[in-house]
């Protein structure tokens, strides 16, 4: 199954899809008036796009409304406008790469690392995982099980150990074993916890210092069910580890992940991958066009 179908399948579980709603809005709309805009506004808000970005999108539609002849055209233009909000760049990985996977609690970091390891192993890359979440109960065991399932090495210490020293060991192992990717799991942390954010910065510095030849690619994992708080999350994690892209997880639920549109628009941060299930293959590369199409298809 290709990306588009999988995504569509995931998104179509939505009982009342955005598209149905959009169609029902537009079906009764012969002319485009204030009410149409208001309903579109509601539709975007209900997808977690957020007030700012929604108002911006509606404003753009409004400016073009003279030229729009019918509701069908409106739909096309809305899609175009949303797509235009996403940054154009795509996934870019230069090997060897150190991947720092960060995010708030419970979003799917460890699971996504398992899936990523599987994906790149299948592409012939040599991968090492670092069990950098030394805080949460059994987080190390969880990553180890993923490591076993995928068939990659996991560097670990005890629960409560310093994550920087785990990372240090993983970097040494990565160099020695000539790994293409060292993927580092980190403990979930709320962006408001100063000391924990400092800890992340330290991890970043360890990578720079201990393995300057490698490229550091941080990724932030974001649960698609998250609301407006994701904006400030992204901002704070960006400041800490300058992450390159987002892994948008749990898109197999009914949440639309519209917050990714807001993040793209307000912070210029792209989505790299999406998670559409708990299984090892439930990770896809993100394609913003497909994403918007799948929402409105």
């Amino acid at each position, binding site marked *: 199954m290709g990306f588009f179908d999988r995504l569509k399948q995931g998104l179509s579980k939505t009982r009342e899809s955005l598209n149905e709603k959009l169609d029902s809005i537009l079906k009764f709309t012969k002319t485009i008036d204030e009410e149409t805009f208001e309903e579109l506004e509601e539709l975007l808000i209900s997808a977690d796009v957020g007030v700012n970005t929604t108002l911006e999108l509606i404003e753009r539609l409004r400016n073009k409304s003279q030229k729009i002849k019918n509701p069908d055209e409106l739909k096309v233009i809305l899609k175009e406008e949303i797509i235009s909000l996403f940054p154009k760049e795509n996934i870019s990985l230069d090997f060897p790469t150190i991947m720092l996977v960060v995010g708030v609690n419970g979003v799917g970091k460890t699971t996504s690392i398992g899936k990523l390891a599987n994906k790149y192993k299948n592409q012939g890359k040599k991968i090492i995982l670092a069990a950098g979440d030394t805080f949460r*109960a059994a987080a190390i065991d969880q990553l180890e099980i993923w490591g076993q399932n995928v068939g990659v090495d996991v560097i670990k210490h005890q629960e409560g150990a310093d994550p920087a020293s785990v990372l240090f060991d993983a970097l040494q192992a990565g160099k020695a074993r000539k790994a293409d990717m060292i993927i580092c799991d980190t403990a979930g942390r709320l962006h408001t916890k100063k000391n924990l954010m400092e800890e992340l910065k330290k991890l970043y510095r360890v990578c720079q210092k201990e393995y300057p030849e490698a490229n550091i690619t941080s990724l932030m994992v974001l649960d698609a069910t998250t609301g407006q708080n994701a904006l400030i999350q992204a901002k704070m994690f960006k400041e800490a580890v300058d992450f390159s892209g987002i892994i948008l997880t749990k898109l197999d*639920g009914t949440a639309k992940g519209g917050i990714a549109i807001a993040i793209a628009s307000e912070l210029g941060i792209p989505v790299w991958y999406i998670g559409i299930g708990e299984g090892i293959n439930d990770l896809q590369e993100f394609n913003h066009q497909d994403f918007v199409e799948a929402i409105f298809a």
Partner: protein
Amino acid sequence: MAFESLTQKLGNIFKKLRGKGKLSEADVKQAMREVRIALLEADVNFKVVKELISKITERAIGHEVMESLTPAQQVIKIVNEELTLLMGSKQSRIDFSKDITTIMLVGLQGSGKTTTAGKLGKLLSKDGKKPILVAADIYRPAAIKQLQVVGEKLDLPVFTMGQKDPVDISKASLEYARRHNYNTVIIDTAGRLHIDDELMSELSNISKTINPNEILLVVDSMTGQDAVNVAEEFNKRLKLTGLILTKLDGDSRGGAALSVKAVTGCPIKFVGMGEKLDDLEIFHPERMASRILGMGDVLTLIEKATQDFDLKKAKELEQKLKTQSFDLNDFMEQLSQVKKMGSFDQILNMIPGLSPQKLKGVQFDDNELDRVEAIINSMTMEERSNPAIINGSRRKRIAAGSGTAIQDVNRLLKQYDQTRKMIKQFTGIDKSRKKGRQKLPFFGF
């Protein structure tokens, strides 16, 4: 980002409303537009927002402004009351009517069920209950181990049967509890999507088999608009008895709380305030309401202010502020009033519109209050009423007299200055100000 300025924004609208006796329709409508945005940015479901706004508008229009509050506070109060009402007016407890109390924790993946199972176990064992934790998440890698580690930390027994059928595990756990004299059974179930039919059936089978006292939906407070769909479906399949809101130690507004409450009608019983195993608290609807609005505990503060403040002194102070003659004597008076109300940090946190940035340099701890008192006591009357004359040599003398360092004196003078400026901002004292109606927002500090 709009998010950060939420408090300020609301403050600004309400500032515009200030200085009028009755709330006009236009005023209220304008304020409601912003309140709507605030609620949506707080992730309150848009349908719930719609209902709320029409209710609040109805109540607010034509409302007489109470003597003790500004129109701005009046509107905040109405909004807050409506939110609190929707959130459930009282805290509710666990149903302990049976000799063995069974509690099922359910919810989406990663919402905090396992951690909360541990926290709840700890809380209830402190209450004299004898709980066991039951590992019924057989899917997520190392989920059983996770619960075992949690149980070990808390010295609570964990019942496991490996990857057996969760329905059998739950049933067996009850027998185990009965046999070993445990009176509370907390079942940690696997995270699942509300649209996953197979796994939802599993939950309803557990429920049918053991007939639990409580089925609590564990909801991440950062959840967006989808919270209603999730809660609605879980409730439909399981008849929830309550909600637990997690990760409230962050800065999410937590509008999901309102949404899930609104669609399920279930009370929010506990809130998770951190990753540690004692970070579980009883839910306070009114606190949640002001959090969603981003208003701090403004109402608590208004209440405290009216309770604890000497009204006559407050009137005097108000007069002083109007004539802008707020001096160090008043500053000290303010501090002693503040001391009556609680710790300084608490109070600062309750004041809306005070962003942390604004507070930089004005923050002092409670010990400092004593130091400040000592410093002011070492000043002459003239110095207190006209702080501008306090030069270098006077500073030295004051420091020596109060047993503090010159830096302390300098800092106090700076704080006084900032306080004065801030109070000026709050009360909107400026040339264009109309006289009358002006009230101190929170009697300053």
